[in-house]
């Protein structure tokens, strides 16, 4: 299960894994959770859950509009 995330499995290995996941509910659940772990890692790399870049944009916008009003 873990290895198929790091290398291509042979046809036999794929068949064997498919069959095993069909009969082993616990393993299927584990496999799903490993999928989630991969997704979580990708989100983590993107900085999801961290302060958004919107703050920078908002500050820029605020500063610009403030400057404009100051000039006016």
């Amino acid at each position, binding site marked *: 299960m873990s290895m198929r995330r790091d290398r291509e499995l042979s046809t036999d290995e794929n068949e064997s894994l498919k069959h095993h996941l069909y009969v082993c509910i616990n393993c299927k659940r584990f496999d799903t959770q490993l999928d989630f*772990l991969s997704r979580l890692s990708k989100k983590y790399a993107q900085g999801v859950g961290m302060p958004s870049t919107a703050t920078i944009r908002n500050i820029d916008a605020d*500063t610009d509009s403030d400057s404009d009003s100051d000039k006016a």
Partner: protein
Amino acid sequence: MTTLNNSESSKNTARRTQLFTEIESHRGYLIRFATAKLRDGAQAEEVVQETLLAALSGVDSFSGQSTLRTWLTGILKFKVIDFQRAVISERARTVSATADDDSADPEWFDKLFDETGHWKEQFSDWQTPDNALEQKQFFEAFEHCMDKLPESARRVFFQREVMGNETEEICKDEAISSSNCWVILHRARVSLRDCINRSWFQGNFG
């Protein structure tokens, strides 16, 4: 005029303070990223410090096309390469990837399975796991779990799953065989799954 200048100056100061806070909030991730590449916490801190300073002085070039973290990571990659170039002639690769693995409990992995080779633990379904991906606390729990991995496992996992590097590249980087790399990755995933399960889905946060 002086009043307007003072007002603009204080706004700029406030803006820079807020930017600093926002950029600074990515330090933990950047240190992990740099440590995965450099294998040295102190060197990683040094490179990240340079990265954050470069980011602060060049924040105007951030277009917002990517996330702030992606932008910072791009700067960090160049800093890491610069650093590696500077020290590559003096550095010897002496750290074995498996040296510290399993040192606390060499049999921890075997203990997860019964005598027939099946999992001892019955895994429960994680309810709406995607909701956790919206919560900052969950990512803190994830970081905490990664920090508990043996050092080499943490580096290998980070390179594979977070940075998305190919295993061949990681093997070369770590000077380990492919099969060793797969074993380390498998154990890291098992350990992380268990930690996240206990600390979040079955624990206080979930």
